[in-house]
Structures are given as C-alpha cells and as structure tokens.
C-alpha cells in the first residue's frame, strides 16, 4: 500500500494510507499514513460500526492538510484480534456412514445459503462451487489418512485454492449461526481450525503433505502460517 502511495503521488494524486504494519510504513515512508493497530483484514476497524469507520476516515483525511511530508500518525484506538473461538453450534451427526468432517460440511449447507442470500455473493468459488465442498473435505480426509494429494480427487486440483473455498464456506455458514454479534478478528479462524472436524482434518492433511515431501507452497498456504 505504501509503495502504491508513492506511485499515485508521482502521477499527481494525493494519497493517505491506512497502515496496518507500522514498521513498513516507517521504512517506505508514504507521504501520509495513519497507522491503525486493528485486526488484519479490517483496516476500518469495526464491521457495521459506521461512527467508528467515520472516525478513522476523518483522521486519515485530515492528514491531507499537512503542508509537508512524510507524516505518520497513529489512530488512538488499538483493537486486538480476538482469537477466542466463536461460540457456534455445529450440526449434529446425520449420516453415520460418512466421515464426520464430510457429514459436518453437508450439515452446514443451509447456514451457508443464508449468508449467501444476505450478501448476494460468496467467497467460495475460487476453484469449486459450494456443492463440491463436501467432496473436497472427503479429499482432505483421504490425504490425512495417507493418500497422496494428487490421487485424492480434490476438486479443482489446487489444495490452496480448495482450502480457501472450504474455509470460506465454513466461515460464511458460521456467520449465519453466530447471531447478531460480530466475531472478533481471529475468532472464526480459531473456531474453524480448533472446533470443527473439517478444520482439524485440514491441518492433519497439511501435515501429512509436509511429511510426504510435497513442495512447500502447495501445503504451507493451505492454512495460516502460524498453524
């Protein structure tokens, strides 16, 4: 972002960056940056809080009055990314003949559809449709049990893209199950990887791929780096 600020200024457009990594804003030194110590992925701070978002914008746009630069300021509010898992009821077992993770994925379909109806769009679709998610979860189950990932029947054939779609499907379903309270910055991630059958299976499949000597970018980016 700070690099692009320099590019746009060179083209004659004034810029303000909402910085998320202060050290990078210090090093690249864009003309104006408001550092916001908010959860990564939420540069305006708080979903559905119009007043807070306007406060961020006002402080950022006020920096355009600075006569010289670079100027780097800090938003006074720090918001830690809450990593307590979302409290979210998972569907009960329905088909005992299916692996638990696949059964769980099928059971979340109605909740996923409710979020899709509200938003009108879904982040599922990078490499598969929502209909294919249970099959992709079944592929993770097979990989975790020792099947080479190239032989597991992963829809789309790209494990990183598939895991993006699987996690998006789960998180969008969870938003419909969580009620009115907006989850914290890491609470859906924690819920997915710690509380769901599929999240745990994904990590097991990823570890199996790592141990089998699969190339780093193919397995590493299936889940956040610190996991």
């Amino acid at each position: 972002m700070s690099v692009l600020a320099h590019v746009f200024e060179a083209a004659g457009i004034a810029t303000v960056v909402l910085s998320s990594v202060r050290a990078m804003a210090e090093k690249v030194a864009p003309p104006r940056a408001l550092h916001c110590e908010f959860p990564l992925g939420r540069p305006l701070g708080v979903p559905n809080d119009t007043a807070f978002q306007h406060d961020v914008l006002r402080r950022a746009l006020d920096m355009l009055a600075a006569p010289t630069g670079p100027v780097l300021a800090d938003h006074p509010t720090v918001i830690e990314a809450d990593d307590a898992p979302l409290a979210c009821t998972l569907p009960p077992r329905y088909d005992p003949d299916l692996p638990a993770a696949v059964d769980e994925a099928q059971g979340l379909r109605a909740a996923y559809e409710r979020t899709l109806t509200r938003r009108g769009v879904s982040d599922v679709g990078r490499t598969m449709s929502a209909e294919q998610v249970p099959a992709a979860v079944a592929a993770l189950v097979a990989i975790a049990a020792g099947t080479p990932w190239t032989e597991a029947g992963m829809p789309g054939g790209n494990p990183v893209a598939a895991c993006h779609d699987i996690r998006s499907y789960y998180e969008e379903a969870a938003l419909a199950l969580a009620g009115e309270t907006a989850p914290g910055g890491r609470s859906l991630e924690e819920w997915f990887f710690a509380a769901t059958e599929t999240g745990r299976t994904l990590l097991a499949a990823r570890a199996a791929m790592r141990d089998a000597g699969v190339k780093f970018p193919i397995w590493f980016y299936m889940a956040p780096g610190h996991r």
Partner: protein
Amino acid sequence: MSGDQAMREYASALPAPTFPDPAFVTPVPLHQATVAIVTSAALHTPDDERFSAVDTGFRLIDRGRRDLVLGHWSPNFDHSGIALDLNVVYPIDRLEELAAAGTIGAVAPRHVSFAGNQPDDVATVRLDSGPRAAEALRHDGVDVVLLTPV
C-alpha cells in the same frame, strides 16, 4: 503468539523499496476533492477475471458495485469482517455519506483493487500496473486516493 502478531512480525522484516525523491502532492481543498479508494484486498466483481496467486495487475470497480468477492490468496488475515460489512475494507458507503454531507467533493466513478501479495521487488506495481491504475483515476478526475490494506 497470535496470528496477527506473527504476521506483523513477518511483514515488518520484508524488504522495503526506497523512494529517494518522493513526490508530495498538495490536493485541492477536501470539500472540492474527488476521492477514490485503492485497496490491496484483491476485491473483484463475480464477472471480473479472478486474481491469480501471483497477480500483479488490478481491477477497476464501478462506484455502484457492492457485489464484491475477496480474491486475496493469503490465509493469514481475517476474512469474516468483510463478509459482515464490505465497508470495513472498502468504505464506499462511508465515502458516499461524506460526499452527501459536503465533506468531500465527490466519490470517484471507479475505484481500484490490487492483490497485496506482490513479489518482493514490487517492480510491476511500481513501474507498470500502478502507473496504469493512476492514469485511469486521473482520467476520472480523482484528486485524492485512500489506500486500504488487508
């Protein structure tokens, strides 16, 4: 260590390009300024070309579009905030409110989306796609850009 702490430590150590003679544009007064958003969330409409994992290009987003998909390939930041409220990454409704109140002059007709995961040398966004995006915004009369990262 939390995921955000780990990512901030990682990102802090990434190589940083230098700009020895940076431009500094003094804009028109804010109440006369046309304002655009440039985000690195790889947002795109469902009918746009999807972002690849190594995409150095950009997508233009018409002012009226709200049906935006997160195309960023990183699993290392929260995706649920934007699923709850597009404005937490792309504050287009907030800009419309500022324009209606007369705080800013106008909302730009088009906005810009890049993918934040760029090669370390950032050569393409610096020398090619970035200047082309700026040219598109200049064509639209944009005076001020707000950059929002993920």
